[in-house]
């Protein structure tokens, strides 16, 4: 049995796009906000003996939090997993790739994020002063 954690989109469309058999899947709808809850995701993944675990979405390119979804695969001992969408696209999980390639990239993203936040903490009060001072 396999597990499809459906973030958004149509589960039948997603499974058809990947030539998966609906009967081989347990489909659980989850809200994207629940991705911030590791214990919740863990309980879903461990709720049954699943050969493969997938996160389903409408469009892969417009789905956030890829790294964290794949981290859940790693942390919960999932061997075969992927993020899949209605168009037949997939981002496959590989523990090696996650650790050696995607983790350093996440670190880079974190540095950029911190820089962006600092930049806007400086920019926005100045902009607010410029725009609203005469009003």
């Amino acid at each position, binding site marked *: 049995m396999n597990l499809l954690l459906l973030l958004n*989109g149509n589960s039948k469309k997603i499974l058809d796009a990947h030539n998966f058999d609906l009967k081989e899947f347990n489909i659980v709808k989850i809200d994207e906000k629940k991705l911030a809850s590791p214990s919740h995701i863990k309980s879903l993944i461990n709720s049954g003996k699943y050969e493969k675990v997938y996160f389903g979405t409408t469009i892969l390119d417009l789905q956030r*939090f890829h790294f964290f979804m794949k981290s859940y695969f790693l942390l919960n001992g999932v061997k075969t997993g992927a993020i899949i969408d209605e168009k037949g696209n997939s981002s496959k999980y590989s523990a090696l790739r996650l650790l050696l390639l995607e983790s350093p990239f996440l670190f880079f*993203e974190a540095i950029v994020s911190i820089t*962006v*936040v600092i930049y806007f903490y400086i920019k926005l009060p100045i902009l607010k002063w410029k725009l609203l001072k005469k009003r």
Partner: protein
Amino acid sequence: MEVIKKALKIMFWRTEFYGGSPEGGTSSLHLGKIRGFNNLGHKCVYVSSGPMDLPDYVKYYYIPYNKLLRNFPEVLSLPYNGKSIREIKKIIDIEKPDFIYQHHHDFHYGGAVLKKKYGIPYVLHVDGVEIWIKANWGKLYFKNLLKWAEEIQIDYSDAIVVPSQTLADLVVEIVGCKREKIFVAPNGVDTEQFHPGIKGELVREKLSLKDKIICGFTGTFGHWHGVEVLAKAMKYVIKEVPNAVFLFVGDGMLRSNIDTIAKEDNVDKNLIITGFLPIGVIPEYVAACDVVVSPCVNNDDGRFFNSPVKLFEYMAMEKPIVATNVGQQGEVIIDDYNGLSCEEKNPEVLAHQIIRLIKDKDLANRLSRQARLDSIEKHHWKYNSQIIIDAYEYGLKNRT
């Protein structure tokens, strides 16, 4: 209603990151307003951060979010300001709109910058005060950044359009802008798209519900929609009407709660949740229903600031409606006149009203006919769109 003499070109601007789904309340809202403008003889250009299904007469521009910064919440919205402002300036040079109608969203302040730099008027559509929404319904990581962006956007706008009086008061209370520049435009419905001539037989066949009594709800399963109350009402209705089925057309964060309640009450076999569907098929699904429900609830602070689009759609479809008497719903649905009203958060009372409409066909027909009449006379999107034009005119006269 006075129609503006000159045909305007309005640029709709949608900025939030909404992923790959063009369905949902905001899309429905925008489509309605666009049709309203079209009805009044104005043109629209649509600039968006994601995909949209639009009528052929609307020109569409897509400004995607950067692929970086997708793994951390909130951060990705900040640099999108710069990117979208640069791109939209090019679009403005091509399209030369009379004004921008921007849907207010967290961390976005582009309308203010465009007005400052290029003098383009902008009217801000506010569905909620973002700092309130994040504090009450979500998680907020960068409170000051959100607060500053929101103050800039709201205070610098030429005019603001909100769907309810309650929200107008909230905007003034939290952000502190001038009340006179806020225009209240309740949501509406396209009574040509939603009408009683649409049949639901194909939907009934598709869902194998041919001989069932269908109680329907359409929309996103958010905090204020009251979907959990409706789920709890199911068992009372099914006890009286065993062949009743509850059809939830939509999706959202409370979906798993609905499933859990239905399982606990042993009525999960009488529940169908369709997930998000293309906006174009919604009328057929409403048509398939015998009774439709809008069980909205007040927020924890006792206020209800929304204007449920589904309510007007139900009315236009000439369906028997049960609606809770919260906020604007209590003003639109008058008990025993154009629907049945009831108190919020009370599943038994909600169920009682649903059962009344199922069992009394004369009552159901009388109320639904009046609902349709009211939708045509008072709630067509063109009335909403005209208020936006009024807001724009106010903005022109009072520019600072």
